[in-house]
């Protein structure tokens, strides 16, 4: 099949974008999803969407493609670009603009629309496209579902008009800017921004040739270029942009939660465990602001056990029927959530107690503040003048390992029901002392 810049669905490119963005050390030969040609096509598409953000590096084992960018300098998530690459047919695009024009301020029946198209529009072309009733009916139905077109019954006939839209987007402009970056479904904000940006492009300037937004440089050039951050006052730190490519799955999950519906999920596991299909009752979307990973916290619809699924591991899914007794069933998840450090809840009926004593010197109140703001559950109490104790009952104390390690240099004692925590800490301490004791190792 010939290469096309546009894509029919997002599944393939989602995987490649993830690999290019997160890892970037794989060579062409190591991508075993389909074929070398499939790799070439997806790489070419991503390059086309992201331009200079994609880089290449020649290594002894081959050429690596990778996306590397500094989050703090990115004020507009560039990964949203790929969502603006949905393929369409010649008929789709022609019909789209003709329909918008014909229905602008008017209401017509399907037959009238066909007649007007044939007599007032398509006669301008040498070989006019022939649209039949069925094609037009399908498109109108699709646009009704999207909310662009409204149908009204008048006696036996049905007429169509454009939906009413009194929303002035510019009133929301700054809010849209912020939530386009911050919302888990920010890609929709980027669609709205694209609409507003259209007002700044050639042909939309005022009578003095100025951009209506006022964002012109001294030569009158519009400053609203898609990659131009001049005039931007909002920036973002600790900003994980890569979840953008999971937006379709995120939308599905949030729909399931909002409508209290079952979700039929197909996901893959780490390693070679293959693909798994599950029916779940979705509870919450768990978002990590420190690790960049998002999860669906849910309950297995068969055995009613709570568990978490990585959103980026979910391949596809669909919403099922409304879950009767949703609120009562998910009380289990609610209670589990109060004792989860992260997202692990496999041992949801048994808590593991943990206590960590931290050395806090005089004039080191910032350590106590750190404990208070970073503890997600449990309590912090003062033991003596130089010791503070964090204690909690959690479902999986091993999940706390990364946080515990950040206090290395201050931990006076640890008590924990989970032996794995103690063992891993011993290993870490011994290994790290060795890693950093030989100062000449890298000279």
């Amino acid at each position, binding site marked *: 099949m010939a290469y096309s*810049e546009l894509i029919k669905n997002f599944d393939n490119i989602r995987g490649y974008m993830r690999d290019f963005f*997160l*890892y970037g050390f794989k060579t062409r030969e190591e991508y075993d999803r389909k074929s070398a040609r499939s790799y070439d096509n997806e790489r070419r598409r991503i390059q086309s969407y992201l331009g200079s953000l994609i880089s290449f590096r020649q290594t002894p084992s081959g050429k690596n493609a*990778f996306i590397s960018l500094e989050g703090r300098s990115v004020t507009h998530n560039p990964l949203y670009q790929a969502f*603006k690459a*949905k393929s*369409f047919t*010649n008929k789709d*695009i*022609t019909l789209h603009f003709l329909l*918008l*024009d014909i229905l602008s301020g008017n209401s017509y029946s399907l037959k009238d629309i066909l007649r007007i198209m044939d007599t007032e*529009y398509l006669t*301008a072309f040498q070989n006019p496209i022939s649209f039949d009733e069925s094609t037009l009916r399908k498109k109108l139905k699709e646009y009704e579902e*999207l*909310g*662009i077109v409204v149908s009204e019954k008048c006696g036996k006939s049905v007429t169509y008009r454009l*939906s009413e839209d009194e*929303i002035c987007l510019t009133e929301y402009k*700054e809010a849209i*800017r912020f939530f386009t970056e911050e919302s888990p*479904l920010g890609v929709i904000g980027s669609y*709205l921004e*694209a609409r507003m940006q*259209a007002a700044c*492009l050639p042909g*939309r300037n005022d009578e003095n040739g100025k951009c209506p937004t006022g964002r012109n440089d001294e030569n009158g050039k519009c400053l609203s270029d898609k990659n131009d951050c001049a005039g931007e*006052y*909002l*920036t*973002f*730190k600790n*900003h*994980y942009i*890569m979840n953008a490519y999971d937006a*379709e799955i995120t*939308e599905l999950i949030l729909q399931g*939660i909002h409508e209290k519906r079952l979700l039929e999920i197909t996901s893959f596991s780490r390693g070679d465990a293959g693909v798994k299909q599950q029916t779940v009752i979705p509870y*919450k*979307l*768990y978002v*990590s602001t*420190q690790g*960049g990973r998002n999860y669906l*916290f849910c309950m297995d619809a068969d055995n009613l056990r709570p568990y978490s699924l990585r959103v980026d591991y979910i391949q596809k899914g669909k919403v099922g029927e409304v879950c009767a007794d949703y609120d009562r069933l998910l009380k289990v998840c609610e209670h589990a959530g109060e004792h989860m450090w992260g997202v692990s809840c496999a041992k949801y009926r048994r808590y593991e107690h943990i206590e960590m004593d931290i050395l806090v010197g005089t004039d080191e109140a910032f350590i106590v503040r750190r404990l208070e703001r*970073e503890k*997600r559950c449990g309590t912090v109490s003062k033991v003596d003048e130089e010791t503070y104790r964090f204690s909690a009952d959690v479902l999986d104390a091993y999940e706390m390992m990364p946080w515990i*390690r950040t206090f*290395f*240099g201050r931990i*006076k*004692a640890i*008590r924990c029901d989970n032996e794995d925590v103690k063992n891993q800490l*011993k290993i*870490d301490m011994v*290994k790290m*002392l060795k*890693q*950093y004791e030989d100062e000449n190792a*890298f000279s």
Partner: protein
Amino acid sequence: MLFHEIYGCYYRAVVQMLNLAIAGGLTEKKMYEIVAETAFEESSLIMIPALKKQEWQLLDENLHTPLKHTPDMPLTILEKRWLKTILLDKRVKLFLEPVPENTELADTDPLFFPEDIVYFDRYADGDDYDDPAYIANFRLIRQAIAERRKLKVTFLNSREQKRCEILEPVQLEYSDKEDKFRVLCADRQSIKTVNLGRIVQCELLEDTFPENVRLKDREKKVLKFILTDERNALERAMMKFSHYKKEVERRDAENYLVTLEYDADDETDVLIQILSFGSYIEVTAPDEMREELRKRMERQMALIDEFATFFP
């Protein structure tokens, strides 16, 4: 449906062309400019021939269009629902004054409620977005940035002491992890940063500062570490450090050399992130970070007389 051609950049580029065509000013050169501005790198190879060959029947051979109105697509249900969703977020009050009474969106169902999402590892001491004084300060700072006006700001420093400074605000930075805004100000030596939540009083001055006053470039440092891929450490690290500019090189089946660039101001934060990986990461550069890690581990071992008492 999130992924649909009506939101695509091809459709958007065609809107621009049709606007010009209706106004009678469309040329082939303009078409190329619009595609370059609006669509992807290779889009002109598809779009221009499709329009010129009348595969998309929107422009005739003279680049005139039979369309009578500038294309104006109503908002979709998805877009309206998203707008309704953001209106339910407490941070929206910072940007909308007043928050619309929702007349146009009154009957629109949001896509989700704020409580449907749990930011499970976010710091607990985020800014208070319901505080009227905080909202007023945010808007004042926003106005100062837009008008390039100086601000007289009284804020609490890290020792809880009041300080008063005249600031030249340039940007507002939001941190997802901390759920905080900071105002970034131009300064001779570096970037002056004040947490919005620490501001006690804020006064907009008549004094302005020039357009060319910008934030200084942040000093960058390069961190190199060897990562051992056990317990999924590679994936965890790649995701955690994905907001840094980085390169990864595979050294053997288990070990990877990671080089990343970070802001010198964030050294402590980066060190803490590195520590969270324990022995799966060994820093090789910069030397001062290795030295700090060595000190911390020595202090830690000094706190342990023996593991038996450390792990009672």
